[in-house]
């Protein structure tokens, strides 16, 4: 590995009329963007706007139907990711691609395409040290990656791209697993590298704050088309938001109705649970949620929130502690869910709350299939009332589906979430457990789902909302709790805290 000086190594990339058609879907329609050398360029857009398709065409994962790619001013044909690597294009994915049991150094060395079958570790480590000396950020090289924090792993992913001498790096929502402080540190360092002309960055994001604070230029996509962009300094957040969502009218958010304090409906007492490896994931969690109140649980993903939700919804055994609903011990089995009116809306509905290959009607009946009118004599199942009920819910919640008999996996993400929402919220709800309900949805769906949650609260339901999106919590919650390392590090009324305090608590609160 040569360790040349990287100053002035940055180059630009330009797409001209990039179009990608999947069957009947125009995923990308005549998109031309220009990423100038030595800049940090943000790519904004809602889910499904074509951001991923665009970068996958640039990286050779997809072949564009039409369009050209210019790398450093030269026309480039990228047939596969290997061609992209040869042209020094690299990409950092949202999820880590490191080998957890290997050290950082080992991860870097084995990632090299020219890595020899027999590795001269002494020589390689020396070369690696020389390389690291030129880098603005450091990562412990000798600890296994599994022992690194999320921020360090993310840095290592970026270092890997630089080590492989990629000079144009695409970052896919790089800060989604970082605390606000980690995100600021990393983006600051990257911005400095682009400013020194060592690197060009194209960053996919949907956080306006990151765009305004760190990006030089921005391009906005909507429904597969380029709808605007320019220098970040020339655009306001409102301009960018308008480009992203177009003319879609967003419903006014449901207003929070002020109501007197009500009794505690859901109480978690000293909960302990282990993760899939049997290591403690939830440690001594005590929380109380009152009726007519939303308790938001913030935190960086992977700090025990998923396990907590799984325990409450019956997907993971409870190691110790108690769950009380209306003061009585609660066990997440069907009879008690029905009796105490406990409902849940989980993240990734196709993984957690729907059966992908069963029909929309069947999925909407998961709560009611064993009760009249769908069931008679406790055993006999009648499809007609099941379909009738599904049709009613489809109309009321505007689920877009070809028919009630379509497998739910054929629906778009927003419609799957809406179908599940219809099922869980159409009854009489006392306790609602929600996890990242808006993850990956478009603006209109997000507004709708948040409104529904707020309305359940106004009606008097106790809502436990886990979200990785701090803005969502700040918008919806009455109280906020922060989870870090499986513990609650902050628990305060929303008015008595702020972003900084929450961010501090996310990092462990010490």
């Amino acid at each position, binding site marked *: 590995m040569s360790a040349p000086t990287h100053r002035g190594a940055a180059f630009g990339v330009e797409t001209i009329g990039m179009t990608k058609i999947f069957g009947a879907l125009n995923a990308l329609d005549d998109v031309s963007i220009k990423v100038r050398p030595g800049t940090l360029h943000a790519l904004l857009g809602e889910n499904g706007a074509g951001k991923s398709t665009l970068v996958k065409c640039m990286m050779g994962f997809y072949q564009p139907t039409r369009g050209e790619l210019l790398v450093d001013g030269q026309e480039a044909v990228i047939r596969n990711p290997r061609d992209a690597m040869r042209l020094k294009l690299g990409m950092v994915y949202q999820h880590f691609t490191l080998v957890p049991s290997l050290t950082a150094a080992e991860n870097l060395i084995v990632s090299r395409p020219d890595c020899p079958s027999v590795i001269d570790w002494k020589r390689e480590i020396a070369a690696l040290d020389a390389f690291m000396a030129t880098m603005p950020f450091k990562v412990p090289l000798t600890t296994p990656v599994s022992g690194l924090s999320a921020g360090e792993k993310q840095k290592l992913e970026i270092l890997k791209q630089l080590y492989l001498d990629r000079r144009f790096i695409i970052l896919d929502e790089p800060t989604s697993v970082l605390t606000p402080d980690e995100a600021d540190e990393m983006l600051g360092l990257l911005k400095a590298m682009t400013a020194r002309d060592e690197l060009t960055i194209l960053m996919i994001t949907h956080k306006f704050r990151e765009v305004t604070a760190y990006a030089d230029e921005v391009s906005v996509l909507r429904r597969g088309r380029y709808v605007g962009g320019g220098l970040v300094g020339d655009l306001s957040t409102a301009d960018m938001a308008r480009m992203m969502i177009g*003319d*879609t*009218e*967003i*419903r006014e958010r449901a207003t929070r109705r002020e109501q007197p304090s009500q009794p505690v409906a859901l109480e978690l007492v000293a909960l302990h649970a282990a993760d899939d490896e049997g290591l403690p994931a939830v440690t001594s969690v005590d929380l109380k949620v009152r009726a007519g109140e939303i308790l938001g649980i913030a935190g960086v993903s992977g700090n025990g929130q998923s396990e907590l939700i799984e325990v409450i*919804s*019956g*997907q993971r055994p409870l190691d110790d502690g108690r769950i009380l609903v209306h003061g009585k011990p609660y066990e*997440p*089995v*069907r*009879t*008690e*869910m029905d009796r105490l009116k406990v409902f*849940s809306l*989980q993240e990734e509905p196709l*993984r*957690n*709350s*729907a*059966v*992908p*290959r*069963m029909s929309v009607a*069947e999925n909407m*009946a*998961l*709560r009611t*299939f*064993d009760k009249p009118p769908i*069931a008679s004599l*406790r*055993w*006999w*199942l009648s499809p007609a009332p099941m379909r009738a009920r599904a049709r009613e819910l489809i109309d*009321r*919640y*505007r*689920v*877009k*589906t*070809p*028919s009630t008999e*379509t497998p739910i996996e*054929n*629906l*778009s993400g927003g*419609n799957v979430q809406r179908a599940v929402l219809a099922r869980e*919220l*159409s*009854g*009489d709800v006392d306790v609602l457990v929600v996890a990242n309900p808006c993850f990956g949805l478009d603006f*209109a769906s997000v*507004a*709708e789902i948040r*409104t*529904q949650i707020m*309305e*359940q609260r106004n*009606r008097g339901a106790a809502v436990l909302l886990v979200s990785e999106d701090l803005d969502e919590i700040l918008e919806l919650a009455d109280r906020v709790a922060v989870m870090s390392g499986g513990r609650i590090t902050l628990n305060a009324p929303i008015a008595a805290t702020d972003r900084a305090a929450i961010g501090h608590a996310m990092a462990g609160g010490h």
Partner: protein
Amino acid sequence: MPDPTTDASVPAVAAQPAPHPRAIDWVGRALAASEAIVIPVGAVVVSAALFSLFLLALGKSPQTFFELLWRGGFGTAFSWQNTLVRTAPLIFTALCVAIPARLGLVIIGGEGALVIGGFAAAVVALPFIGQGGAFFVMPLMFIAATLAGALWIGFVGALRHHRGVNETIASLLMFYIAVAILNFFVEGALRSPADPNKPSTTPIGADLMVGQIPGLEVHWGLAFGVVMAIGAHILMSRTTFGFAARVTGGNVRAARAQGLPVGRLMLAACALAGACAGIAGYFEVAAILGKANASLVAGYGFTGILVSFLARHNPLAIPPVAILFGGLAAAGGLIQRRMGLPDATVQVLQGLIFLIILLSETVYGRIPLFSREARA
């Protein structure tokens, strides 16, 4: 249920009008449905082609082979009878695979439940042999076989539920235990002096034997098997148990989140599956063998796995597929005599079919012709 949210919760997003239920695309639906038939049939054809190459390599004529297969399995009334006698146990053992498969469990030890079921039937009959009272003893034998099979595979389900033991391995290993139990008693305490050449239990006698379906010369087990297959279909598609089972098999996380008793459902499905295989054992003893001996271990349980996979675990598809494999088995003897090929040749074909069936699982959803239905 009172529904206070009816009006308040109607979302009102201007840009999202209510959907128009799209006209149902009948051609697309028919094509999508035909995928489940075309792919397995294609798999069988590919296996037959590969098997022909195998025969050519042995210097034998594939044409003769398939002619004999037809004649031995389906060509004459006698061969049909031969085929259907072998079809009956295959339907039951295939159900033993298909029912747990709907919950995502892979049970391959149906042969063990068949052996234990047949053995139990023969044993409970022992005190009553030659004393009449068939109206009482025959149901007793049937119940004993059903229960023994249910407990046998039910135990596998319990191991899985309470101890997290892999059900596939456990059911396979239990098969060896079943054979050992059978041999231990048949060659020891329960060996009948009536049969000096082959260790067996005392023959149950003609009055306890199951009769034949009039005009078909095949025992009642076949009809019962078809009824069971239809019953299994109704259970899976039209009952709350079947619905809960399909939810569990389709997404166990969603089933847990709905508070469904996943463990109990798995246990029940395993017991039901074992009961089916136990019934196969009952008919082998009470309609064919007349006693329990090593002939119970005839491989029906293992061929049943194949039948279930080829039928895509659809109970209604099991009887026809079972007839196909019954015919293969029935023709084995003829092929052996006429072509000078070992009896196991048919098993080579069966193995090939299984391999290609497993491979063909990866093809589903990949052929554009079958997935015309527009995505919402």
